[in-house]
């Protein structure tokens, strides 16, 4: 599973990066690489089964005191 994840990201990288290097668009290269890197880290964590706090439920927890106070 981990191997497949890394392979998929390598394929996306091969598709995305060469044209940017060719056109010397360094800013674009850095921006898309950072996004891709975040995606890679997240994908590796998910495929290794590392527990990640659920995003939207964390927002709900953040708003819970206010929601309770307003009695919604």
């Amino acid at each position: 599973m981990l191997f497949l994840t890394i392979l998929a990201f390598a394929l996306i990288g091969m598709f995305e990066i060469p044209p940017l290097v060719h056109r010397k668009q360094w800013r674009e290269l850095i921006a898309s690489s950072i996004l891709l890197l975040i995606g890679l880290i997240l994908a590796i964590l998910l495929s290794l089964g590392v527990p990640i706090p659920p995003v939207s439920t964390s927002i709900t927890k953040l708003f819970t005191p206010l929601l309770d106070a307003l009695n919604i």
Partner: protein
Amino acid sequence: MRLEQGKISSSQLVFIVLGVILSSVQVIPPSGRVGRIAWLTNLIGVIEACGFALIFIALAKRFQGDTFVDIASKVWGTYLGKAVSGAYLLFLFHIGSLVIDDFATFLNTVFMPETPSVVLALGMAAVAAYTVRHGIEVIARCSQILVPMLVVNTALAFLLALPQFELANLQPLFDAPLSELALGAHRATAFPYLESLAFLMVFPFVSRQKQVGKSVIGSLIIGGVFLSFLSVRNYAISGIVNTINVYPSVMAIALIEVGEIVTRIEALVALNMLSVAFLAICVFMYTNVLGTAQLLELNSYRPLVIPTAVLMALVSTIHFENYIEAFVFANQTSLLYHPIFEIIVPGLTLLVAAARGKRNTGRDALVSKEES
């Protein structure tokens, strides 16, 4: 260099806004907390939404030809502006991946229980990424085909469902306390209707700028009436059971039976869901990558599309641990969380713009650049 060369007409804008408004509600209906009077809260919600929509329409009028990222940097200054538009872009990313999650969970639960939902999410994100790379014009043209198809499908299902209608299910008509009515209306405003705020990134590409406000208000009203029809249909068919159905539209349509031949046509709902979810994901992904490219002063947004799509699909799998959390988020958290970005941020921006006397001088606007 302009990031987006395309132009869309104001009628195309109506169709895309409709696609966004109708996206999640096929699955998580805005009737969650109010039950039978959902049709009424939908209509009241439209009035509230039109009122608040006037804020960002006024903003778009004041800064004609600017996207929200431009507006924020003009009004709030360079650094604070970047922070405000960064938060706005994160919000767009969040609701975009929420739509992917809604869609993938829906297909996973109802039609493809054996398929892991991350596969469905990645597939949808890939199609959306392909569309987004081709620009706003392609999304607009897709919406011109998909939204009328949705209306025809729904009208067909409505006609076929007429024999199952039990109008007594809708009575008594107004038996909810006023507070629930107001909260239900606000819920409809926050969750589907004012998500049209994302179009602050798209308004500059509408060819006739004067029509923008009319188009948005028009599509809000059409969308609201449409949603009311859906609630009436679902309630008239399945009655009070509707409040505990996870997917009311599917349950209602599944009951259709015409002469023992036309049965189990709930795939129609899936078709509708597929088309509008696709549109909404495209819009949120497009506005997010366009905004990011503007924020980072890139020459093109296309290199960001695939990484953003992958990230959106991955994040969509870690929103909730179970359906209850999704329900709580949609019916309670969204009442406070969505308005922060939908009402407070554009409202404050408009106030500060008025106080500082900022408006688009036209010199550096996207529109005037094209004319020169």
